């Protein structure tokens, strides 16, 4: 289970919408409890360093990655995972995500659907859109299993709406 507090969700939504229609990306920091539950305490927004079309790809530069590891060390947090957005696509990992994925990390995907193309599943979104009538936001989180396949990681639903 991964816990995304409303404050963290809002930061992720902000980044996803600000970057739309490009993919946003960044790091997730926090604690992992003994039972494997992950609590996200802070995020680090980084540039999508993908050359060319960023609407369907993201890349994080190695130097940004090293910065993130140092950031975790400085704050005594654990680097728990990566987030990125899927503009106009559901929050399901693509084959590109899977091939490049690291073991153990949580991959939180933020789906940003334009309302007029939103499917039934996206209508299930629990986030109120900051731009009502424009976007539907939906979160899902994924972790690689031993077979190098993604398994969904439950996101704790603490809603204050």
């Amino acid at each position, binding site marked *: *289970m991964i816990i995304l*507090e409303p404050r963290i969700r809002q930061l992720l939504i902000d980044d996803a919408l600000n970057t739309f229609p490009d*993919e946003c*990306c960044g790091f997730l920091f926090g604690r992992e*409890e003994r039972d494997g539950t992950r609590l996200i305490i802070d995020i680090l927004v980084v540039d999508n360093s*993908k050359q060319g079309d960023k*609407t*369907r*790809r*993201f*890349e*994080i530069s*190695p*130097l940004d*990655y*090293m910065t993130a*590891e140092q950031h*975790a*060390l400085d704050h005594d947090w*654990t680097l*728990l995972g990566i987030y*990125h957005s*899927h*503009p*106009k*696509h*559901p929050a*399901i*990992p*693509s*084959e*590109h*995500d*899977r091939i*490049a994925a*690291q*073991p*153990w*990390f949580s*991959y939180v995907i933020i789906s940003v*659907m334009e*309302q007029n*193309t*939103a*499917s*039934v*599943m*996206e*209508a299930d*979104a629990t986030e109120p859109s900051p731009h009502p009538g424009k976007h*539907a936001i939906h979160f899902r989180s994924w972790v690689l299993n031993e077979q190098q*396949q*993604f*398994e*969904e990681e439950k996101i704790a*639903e*603490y*809603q*204050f*709406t």
Partner: protein
Amino acid sequence: MATVIIPTPLRKFTNNTARLQVGPGTIHSTVQELTQNFPDLKKHLLDEGGNIRSYVNIFIGNDDIRDLQQEKTAVKEDAIISIVPAIAGGSPETHGAPGPDDPMQPSLGAPASTIDRMPTNPPTEASASGIGHALARPLLDRSLAHPFTKEELARYNRHIIIPGFGMEAQLKLKTAKVLVIGSGGLGSPVLLYLAAAGVGTIGIVDFDVVDDSNLQRQVLFGVDEIGKPKVEAARRRLEGLNPYIKLHIYNTHLNSQNALEILKDYDVIADGTDNFPTRYLVNDASVLLGKPNVYASIFQFEGQVSVFNYRNAQGELGPNYRDLYPTPPPPGLVPSCAEGGVLGVLPGIIGSLQALEVIKVITGVGETLAGRFYIFDALNFESRTFTIRRRKDNPINGDNPTITALIDYEAFCGMRAVEERPLKEITAKELYDWQVRGEKFQLIDVREPHEYDIVNIGAELIPLGTVAANSEKIDRDRPVVVHCKVGGRSAKAIRELEEKFGFNNLYNLKGGILAYIDEVQPELTKY
């Protein structure tokens, strides 16, 4: 030695070690050394041909080895080598909204349940059915699913997000009813933390009024409440802390006549009393009613905590106070806090532990202190936990119980009731008559000097805490009227003087100086 910094996701293959030392050489030899020492790293660093995987970057300092001599790059003694996973990804190739035919889905390797939740309707149908409705429904359902308001959810957020505690435990707190007996040194932190934690219904039993000497440890109260009943002061404080809970107050002495009636409506009892008769009373009433009794006590530098009469998940009943102390100590052997003193911070520590155990009993989270007895020695900073067991000869729930109803606990503990003898009282009106008639009497004010400075009626000032030391200043051969703000402290002073020094000429001014101002001199300052 050179240092290799292992990225977080690969640390599970290096025994959670972030930094590894390797000998000097080249990147190639470094990777060899790493994969030999940690074989599980191999498939993540090297491909089938034994080459460094394309999505693994290796840096020396801030330089990518691809910009240096690749695997042949030299690793010097003081080199810092970072293994940096390439982080990349993207959306599926197909454009437009996904449907069940999305070609990427079969490769997800996601569990069947995830697949089941994939969209089955084409997006156009969703649009036709109205997004607004579809969005609103889950929110409504969620609000019906649990009885918390959004304000409560915000208030208890730090509980709800604790793994293993969560909404479930918070809901148990909300539906729980806890009776806290005694709102003094132990009761203060217990009540503050239970109210803050969101225990839905809290009962408070106390007969006492707030005294200035309480404020050294009874953090529930402030100077403004001196002279007021503790239960009322406590209610005001707790209402201000948490408006989402219910509070019931009992401004009374707990005794054999009222104990069962008061305790019966609660799920958990928290005993924070300071005397043996009440402890046995609370214990016996809890056992007779089958309720867990979270017990704590303090004396000078030592505190004790346990959970009595607790039935665990396996249905086994734990010991109670009578298994620990079959009989009370002789009267006078163990002094009360008022007599023996207590370090003010100690009830804060022990009362917090008591609140902790109450929360564990309610929520079922963790292992309670049932069957164990915890002692904290503040002076040496030592804790000990003893195992305690049920006794066959326990008179209330052993093999042959002899106590089947509440008894006279004052007599059982060899003490007479503190409140038995009524005090001699005088009303403000009568006092005024004495003054007008020029009766010979002494007037003593037992309030604090700062209160005396605000307003006084010409009495001799002997603050409550110094009464015993100044007993020789108090006349024995004429009536002595003792007053404070509303009458509580003067009553204490009179009892102390009667018990320790044998006075029999003391009168308590009913309603204190406030009553006198109201009835005799309304022009004086009230505070």
